[in-house]
């Protein structure tokens, strides 16, 4: 089992954080993982992306060329990476700001209104967690409970109130995939 994932969007949308949360959760579940950011001038206002590998085998190349799953948080990301997704793969699109649909017929595409979900919860910063919840539901690669436990570890003391809202964002994102 190897999942190669590209997570891409504008700087500030939390794309690096989605990737880091995935590899942290993967490590918790005993998988081999790697996280490789794009770095350089493209991060300033352009498209930032990271490559994530989750596998039951040691990770060879940490560079993801043809992802099993693509998370496109903005339009340039979809335009840039859609053609690279493996046949049978998954594309998750932040439909709050991407009006395009996936053009490929050999992949599964899901449309997640991340910003509306986050705004409904009263915390725009949870948009990326809505996308992460959708990813976990669509890919089945990691258990949501693993991420929930990590949230409890990250948010403590006065920030403990953020745990439930992040879990709720993940659930609402997942519901966009499952139709629940």
């Amino acid at each position, binding site marked *: 089992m190897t999942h190669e994932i590209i997570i891409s969007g504008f700087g500030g949308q939390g794309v690096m954080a989605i990737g*880091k949360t995935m*590899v*942290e959760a993967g*490590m918790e579940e005993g998988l*081999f*993982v*790697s*996280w*490789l*950011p794009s*770095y*350089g001038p493209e991060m300033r206002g352009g498209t930032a992306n990271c490559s994530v590998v989750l596998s039951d085998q040691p*990770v*060879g*190349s*940490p*560079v993801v*060329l043809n992802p099993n799953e693509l998370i496109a948080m903005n339009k340039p990301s979809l335009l840039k990476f859609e053609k690279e997704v493996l046949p049978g793969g998954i594309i998750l699109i932040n439909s709050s700001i991407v009006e395009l649909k996936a053009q490929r017929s050999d992949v599964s595409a899901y449309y997640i209104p991340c910003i509306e979900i986050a705004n409904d919860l009263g915390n725009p910063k949870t948009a990326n967690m809505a996308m992460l919840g959708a990813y976990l539901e669509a890919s089945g690669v990691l258990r949501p409970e693993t991420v929930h436990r990590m949230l409890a570890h990250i948010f403590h003391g006065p920030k403990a109130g953020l745990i439930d809202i992040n879990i709720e964002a993940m659930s609402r994102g997942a519901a966009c995939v499952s139709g629940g």
Partner: protein
Amino acid sequence: MAFELWKGNEAIAEAAVRAGCRFFFGYPITPQNEVPEYMARRLPEVGGCFLQSESELAAINMVYGAAGAGARVMTSSSSPGISLKQEGITYMAGAELPAVIVNVMRGGPGLGTIQPAQGDYYQATRGGGNGDYRLVVLAPNTIQEAVDLMQEAFDIADCYRNPVMLLADGMIGQMMEPLEWHEPRHRELPPKDWAAAGLHGRGSHNIINSLFIDPLACERHNNRLQEKYRLMEQRELRFEERGCEGAEVLFVAYGSPSRIVMSAVDLLAAQGVKAGLLRPVTVWPYPYERLAALSREPSVKAVVAVEMSAGQMLDDVKIAVGGCKPVTFVGHTGGVIPTQHEIAAAALAALGR
């Protein structure tokens, strides 16, 4: 035994602290900036000193000073910055000063690019500064290995009174991977009774110097250095073999490209081609003898060197193979990373398929 997720540059810095490094002098440059950033926060916690100097030249000479006083000291930089430090490195080699220098390589020549590359192989393994000197050059391909090697690098430096280089690239520096912290293998080290750190009741001063005006004295000094380098060649050689037994294609790669080669090995296996990898972990000393022996195995039909350069380690591969098998090369420069697909295709082409 617990895995922790670390970014390469930060892991390298923490490994140095755990190895007893208490002094860091450096100047910022991408893609290694997390090393000084981490050290700036971490070293004061352990009673150490972090100093961002006014230039690379100042930094390496501060390293010279601290090493001369007997401290565990390091610097880090990336390719153009390492070029600026070459004068200090050859002076340290000449004055026999132990220190660790980290090069998180980026594309060149000149300012080049900030993306990963391996164009500093000649500089690292042939001595980028003047004179006949060598550094032990350690080239990790995982963050775990970077950490393990970094923890030992200071002992190697102290053991031989010689600078040691950790040769990484932007990919190792920027990526995150799980690692486990191990207690480093501590060597029996000689006391630093040569350090210029005060008389402490002794009658004569210790002098740290790389100047020998008398040619005979300078050659005697050189001969002694060469003996030391021969000892390093015997004792410090490290390499890894993956699936070389019965391999038709023998890949040779170090650092990040060796990981991509392993992905290519999987692609080739799916097409029924058995490929193996010889990975130098030290690029100086270089595993000439092992590569010579492996390339002479009857099963091996082609040797393929893979680098993020225009072909620098390729010279060492050709020296070792000695013309007994065809050697082909896959390389990219300027921060372009080779893909497993082109590596596999080059291997098939080398086999005539």
